[in-house]
């Protein structure tokens, strides 16, 4: 099994497989977005307390989940690159950062906009919000560190250390609503119990989560492909791709 997985650590194999995967993920992403947005904005009933303002959940919650998921992926692939010096792991780690930072920013800004009608304030120094803001700083720090070094491999190693150290923030963000007394509501889905959200509101949320995941995979593969081409520009398989493009 490891031999099967390991072959995709080759830049050429990864490049070849990323093309169809990103195409299908892109199509799935568009479909999931259409279904999720229609069912969330039109079909789902209004909340009995929050009215229609709850519909921000369909972009706020998936953004927050993705911000955590991408950070963990970034740290793990950075760690793999650090230990086994795998180029693909370093490339994946580096290219996770921008999209992860974007989702963290979106989680914060949509949460802030949602907070105004609900809490009466755009921002409070609540445990969940503060730890999510720290996550954004970690992402921005990682991105800045990648730009600070000319040698990409040294940058990748330094970034991996930062990412692994910052991993402690992920359980803090997740459990902050349980450990501290916060304004932010507690978990409704990611807990060891039945979800406390109505199924008519839950289904659009799941579709939007799937849409966000497939969007991330699409963008990650597009970004990684361009970096692989830059790394491998002198190899024969890249030359064949370029010759094919020139003929077209």
């Amino acid at each position: 099994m490891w031999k099967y997985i390991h072959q995709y650590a080759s830049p050429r194999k990864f490049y070849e497989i990323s093309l169809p995967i990103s195409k299908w993920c892109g199509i799935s992403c568009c479909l999931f977005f259409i279904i999720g947005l229609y069912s969330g904005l039109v079909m789902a009933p209004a909340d009995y307390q929050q009215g229609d303002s709850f519909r921000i959940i369909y972009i706020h919650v998936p953004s927050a989940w993705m911000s955590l998921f991408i950070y963990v992926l970034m740290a793990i692939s950075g760690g793999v690159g650090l230990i086994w010096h795998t180029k693909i792991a370093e490339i994946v780690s580096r290219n996770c950062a921008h999209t992860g930072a974007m989702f963290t920013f979106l989680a914060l800004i949509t949460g802030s906009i949602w907070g105004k009608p609900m809490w009466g304030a755009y921002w409070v120094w609540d445990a969940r919000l503060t730890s999510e803001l720290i996550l954004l700083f970690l992402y921005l720090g990682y991105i800045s560190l990648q730009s600070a070094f000319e040698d990409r491999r040294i940058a990748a190693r330094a970034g991996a250390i930062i990412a692994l150290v910052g991993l402690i923030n992920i359980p803090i963000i997740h459990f902050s609503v349980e450990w501290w007394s916060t304004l932010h509501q507690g978990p409704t889905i990611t807990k060891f119990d039945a979800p406390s959200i109505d199924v008519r509101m839950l289904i659009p949320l799941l579709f939007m989560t799937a849409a966000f995941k497939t969007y991330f995979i699409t963008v990650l593969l597009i970004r990684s492909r361009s970096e692989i081409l830059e790394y491998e520009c002198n190899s024969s398989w890249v030359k064949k791709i370029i010759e094919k493009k020139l003929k077209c």
Partner: protein
Amino acid sequence: MLKDFFYMGGYGSFIWSSYGIWLFAILLNYIVAHLKEKKAINNIITIYKHKKNDS
């Protein structure tokens, strides 16, 4: 009915501004990634053409 949809029970400005920012961000992120790939390919084509001309 369409008016009610955009009004969103009085929360329209909050909801649509959130969705607007979200849509702008994800489109921008995708376009930047796509342009980066295009730029990488064009750079390699340029290098390849120079090498071909030199040889």
